[in-house]
């Protein structure tokens, strides 16, 4: 039944994706459909909870069916014909097939890892899984639990997309299937890889795109099983890259779908909320303030949760009383933050050297072309740093337990720009590479 619950969600995701952006290449459609599909259960269960309808397989499926039918009607209004599945094998070369086969080996290896057992992360047991399990027992969002001061450790303010996705699978399984939650993280990785692969192929051709995808795939599959990092990486990467495509090709559909995915990022983690702001700043400064209107789904999607959490007084720990005092003190003396960051590892040195070298070689023209993505990532990193300036926690502790993880949230986007520009320089392909 878990397979059925996911298949139904992915089908609805495909219908919604196609209704919004019918002209996308096959790989992008497939990837975006997976990501949208994994976001719909939160919308359905959230709406049922708001309406006071207890969750069950039937009510959940009914809600999903309404979304699916709305998508079909939307597609008919846009006079989209019957669904024709494009050939995924078009234009393949032996080299691209070889690279894609290696990517498949890596993804399968990740699947073996993810499906080895229960999510092993502490934050799964104390935050993401705990809330999902509480809601599953309550057959709804348990605000009594979230509001109880003893449960502050579970970060009641965090957006609920992932716990509700756990609940979705559990409703159909009839029990708590945590042994199989790894499959969700494989799907998030596949979704991100699909979108990235499709966009790279448009810009670089099949062989270079396949090589670039191989390089980017390990960044798409987060090792933090059970936590919201994997979903956030997938939504952030796919969302921003579709905005980039929408600006480059002047297509409203891509902008709408990209904004929808950013809205799902904002429904996944608080960092997703700041990413919406970062994307808006980058969009306004690179593509014009008028295009901000297309970001409306990114604002509308997380809005209900923002209102509800305010209503229930579920505040974030970062804004605990004295935030402005802490900010002022640490701006005056940022030494502790700098020392904490300097003493904390943030990934693999070889990778970062390669990334820096690629951006150096890229030159000003490429950097100008990529200013939407690079600008959004830069603003997002400022938000990350800002969190350390206001945190009520011990700075060294906070940095140690978060820095590498949050840096990784944006790494795939940076690597996309770096790998794309390096391969463009190397093989000279410039197909449709006029983003930004």
């Amino acid at each position, binding site marked *: 039944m878990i397979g059925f619950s996911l298949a139904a969600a992915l089908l609805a995701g495909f219908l919604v994706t196609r209704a919004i952006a019918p002209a996308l290449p096959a790989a992008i459609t497939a990837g975006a459909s997976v990501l949208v599909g994994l976001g719909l259960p939160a919308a359905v269960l959230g709406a049922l909870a708001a309406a006071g309808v207890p969750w069950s397989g039937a009510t959940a499926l009914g809600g999903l069916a309404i979304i699916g039918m709305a998508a079909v009607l939307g597609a008919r209004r846009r006079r989209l014909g019957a669904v024709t599945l494009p050939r995924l094998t078009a234009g393949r070369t032996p080299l691209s097939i070889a690279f894609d086969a290696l990517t498949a*080996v*890596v993804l399968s*290896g*990740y699947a*073996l*890892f993810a499906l*080895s*057992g*229960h*999510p*092993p*992360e*502490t934050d*799964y*047991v*104390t935050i993401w*899984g*705990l809330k999902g*399990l*509480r809601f*599953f*027992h309550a057959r709804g969002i348990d605000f009594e639990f979230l509001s109880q001061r*003893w*449960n502050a*450790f*579970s970060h009641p303010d965090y957006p609920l997309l992932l716990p509700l996705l756990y609940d979705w699978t559990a409703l159909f399984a009839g029990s*708590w299937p945590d042994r199989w939650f790894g499959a969700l993280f494989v799907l998030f990785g596949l979704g991100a890889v699909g979108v990235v692969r499709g966009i790279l192929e448009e810009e670089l051709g099949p062989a270079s795109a396949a*090589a670039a995808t*191989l*390089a*980017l795939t*390990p*960044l798409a*599959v987060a*090792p933090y*099983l059970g936590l919201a990092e994997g979903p956030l990486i997938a939504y952030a990467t796919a969302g921003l890259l579709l905005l980039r495509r929408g600006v480059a090709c002047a297509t409203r559909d891509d902008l709408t779908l990209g904004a929808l995915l950013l809205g799902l990022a904002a429904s996944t983690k608080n960092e997703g909320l700041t990413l919406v702001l970062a994307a808006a700043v980058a969009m306004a400064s690179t593509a014009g303030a008028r295009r901000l209107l297309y970001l409306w789904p990114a604002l509308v999607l997380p809005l209900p949760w923002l209102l509800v959490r305010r209503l229930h007084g579920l505040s974030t720990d970062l804004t605990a009383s004295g935030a402005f005092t802490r900010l002022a003190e640490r701006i005056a003396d940022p030494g502790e933050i700098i020392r904490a960051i300097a003493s904390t590892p943030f990934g*693999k*040195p*070889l*990778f*970062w*050297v*390669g*990334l820096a*070298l*690629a951006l*150096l*070689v890229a030159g000003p023209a490429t950097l100008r072309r990529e200013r939407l993505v690079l600008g959004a990532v830069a603003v997002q990193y400022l938000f990350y740093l800002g969190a350390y300036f206001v945190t009520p926690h011990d700075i060294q502790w906070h940095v140690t337990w978060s820095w590498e993880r949050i840096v990784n949230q944006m790494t795939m986007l940076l*690597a996309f720009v*770096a*790998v794309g*520009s*390096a*391969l463009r*320089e*190397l093989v000279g392909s410039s197909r449709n590479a006029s983003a930004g």
Partner: protein
Amino acid sequence: VSIRKAAAGLAFALILIGGFETYYLRIYLHDRAALGRTFEELPWRKLPGFRQFLLDVRAATREGEAIALWIEPMSWMGGYEYGYVRAGYLLAGRDVIPLLAPDGRILSANSAAADVIACYRCATVPAGFLAVRSTPAGLVLRRGPR
């Protein structure tokens, strides 16, 4: 080959090799059943036997009951926080309430609200409670008739 092309090739190679996760290849040769067992124990490893103790508490209690958690020694940083924030997951459906505040205060009012005290690593039974299950890691204490 221009210097730019060579540098671009080097950059791509560094990103590919540097970012590659060899674990996703090595895992094909791993004992995944053992890995699964490690996954299961990982979040609980600092309090030996605590996971099984909670499963025993779960078996001895009903949904909706309030379970207060006692962990010897009663020290917030010495294990209480570690156990308290994890207990709710395996005791889902029950309300887990703390008996210790982060500042070290014993929250005796909470014990008055508890149907059950899950007592990890302790052997004594407080007044008003009866031991209904004894496990290698501790006792499950149920409130006696008032």
